[in-house]
């Protein structure tokens, strides 16, 4: 029996090799999938959803001024301790509202239940906001839980640097720079 089946099996084996070769040869003549990076770039539609490091969102009135109320919830929730918020107490001012209007709300689902800022019931003045991006794990807890809607993810895909300092951001400065260059306006959340 084997003497009959063996040649058939051998021929089938050789045929399977031919079939495999046909696949690679067809693929050889198909267009390439690669994007030649410096000359071509990934279409923007594929980058919009990319979550880069977080950035501050400006207020509607003054894009250079962050909505942040300095409560420090983001820094407290951060699993890798990569945020540093410095704020000082303000005298109570009923005209300052820390309810966000849009911004991060549209990016993130907004439950009815919202954690109050941990210690302060009233807003504080934001002095500086630092992000150490090289320890960030992009979990999104800060953005999700910001009571003022002052945080969102940037879409900076091509971030690269040769030194550690390149990944330590002063986000307030960045926000001012964005406002000066007419970058993404505070009112627009680009999800």
């Amino acid at each position: 029996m084997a003497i009959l089946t063996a040649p058939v099996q051998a021929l089938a084996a050789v045929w399977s090799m031919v079939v495999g070769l046909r696949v690679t040869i067809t693929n050889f003549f198909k267009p390439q999938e690669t994007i030649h990076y410096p000359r071509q770039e990934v279409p923007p539609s594929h980058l919009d959803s990319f979550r880069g490091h977080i950035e501050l969102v400006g207020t509607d009135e003054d894009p250079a001024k962050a909505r942040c109320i300095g409560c420090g919830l983001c820094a407290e929730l951060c699993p890798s301790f990569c945020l540093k918020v410095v704020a000082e107490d303000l005298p109570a001012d009923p005209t300052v509202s820390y309810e966000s209007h849009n911004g991060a709300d549209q990016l993130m689902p907004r439950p009815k239940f919202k954690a109050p800022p941990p210690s302060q019931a009233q807003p504080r003045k934001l002095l500086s906001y630092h992000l150490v991006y090289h320890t960030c794990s992009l979990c999104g807890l800060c953005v999700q839980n910001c009571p003022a809607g002052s945080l969102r993810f940037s879409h900076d895909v091509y971030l690269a640097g040769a030194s550690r300092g390149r990944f330590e951001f002063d986000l307030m400065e960045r926000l001012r720079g964005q406002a000066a260059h007419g970058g993404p306006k505070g009112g627009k959340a680009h999800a």
Partner: protein
Amino acid sequence: MNGSSLAAVAPELLRLGVGLLALVGFIAANGMLLLYVERKVAGHVQRRPGPFEVGPHGLLQAFADAGKLVGKQLATPAGADGLLFWAAPLMAFMPVPLMFIAIPFGENLFGLQTNLGLVLILSFAGFNVLALCLAGWGSNNKWSLLGAARAVSQAVAYEIPLLLSVLAVALMCGSLDLRQLAGSQGGWPWQWNVAVQPLAFFIYFVCAVAETNRAPFDLAEAESELTAGVHTEYSGMGNGIFFLAEYANMIVVGCVATALFLGGSQGPFAPGPWWFLAKMYLLVTLVIFMRWTYPRVRFDQLLNLNWRWLMPLALVNLLATALAVKLAG
């Protein structure tokens, strides 16, 4: 001694010298060309560009690679036998030009006319095993040693059916002279030996891939099993020479296949060296495509394939050929 007297004394020697020099150039050029072709084929098969940055479409990549390899440090591993370790790449490369001298690229384009051309090539091809063996042993690396053991048993096994399949053709033509063998075939494909001896061609082709340690038979190298087998410890040009020898060996087996089975420089319309080169490169490209298509066979399967299929088939083929020649003659 002037040129004319030299020519008078040893025209054959002069031809040999010039031929050898030209062949070394040919091998080096081909090494670079095949390196480029291999990487381009790999790239396009995998739907990516392959080398692209150096020169237009990466044409100069091979030069950049060669420059890089030459510039790298040659490290001898601790505890390695330095003499054997560095003799191995040289031994892999040095016999290669000698194999080319008997190959008839065209009617009058060859290095050496000898009626034992086939024997010469096959005997020098055996050196490659020795080189891999030394490389594996001299490296003082267990993976290299395993690779060397594989290389030796593989080469020893596959040389036999290779020889047998070649013999069948030699029997048909009654000669071992490659020029005569090539010349005895006609210009059209149905006049080639492959039409008469398809089985011998198939066996030869499989054995040739195995002899040159190309995937799917690259067991001596087997980077996913033996890290890189015999090449593991070689850096810079040590590795580079092995590569060069591998490509040169591919061309040699391609050339022999062309001369024996595909009509050599004979071809439709206008016979000449271009036909020879075209057929040879076609075969080499096929080998390259195979490398990027198939998984690697296992070691015992490789030997099984040889001893259980190729050997008996080659023997039967040889016997049938002998019988046919006897009856017809």
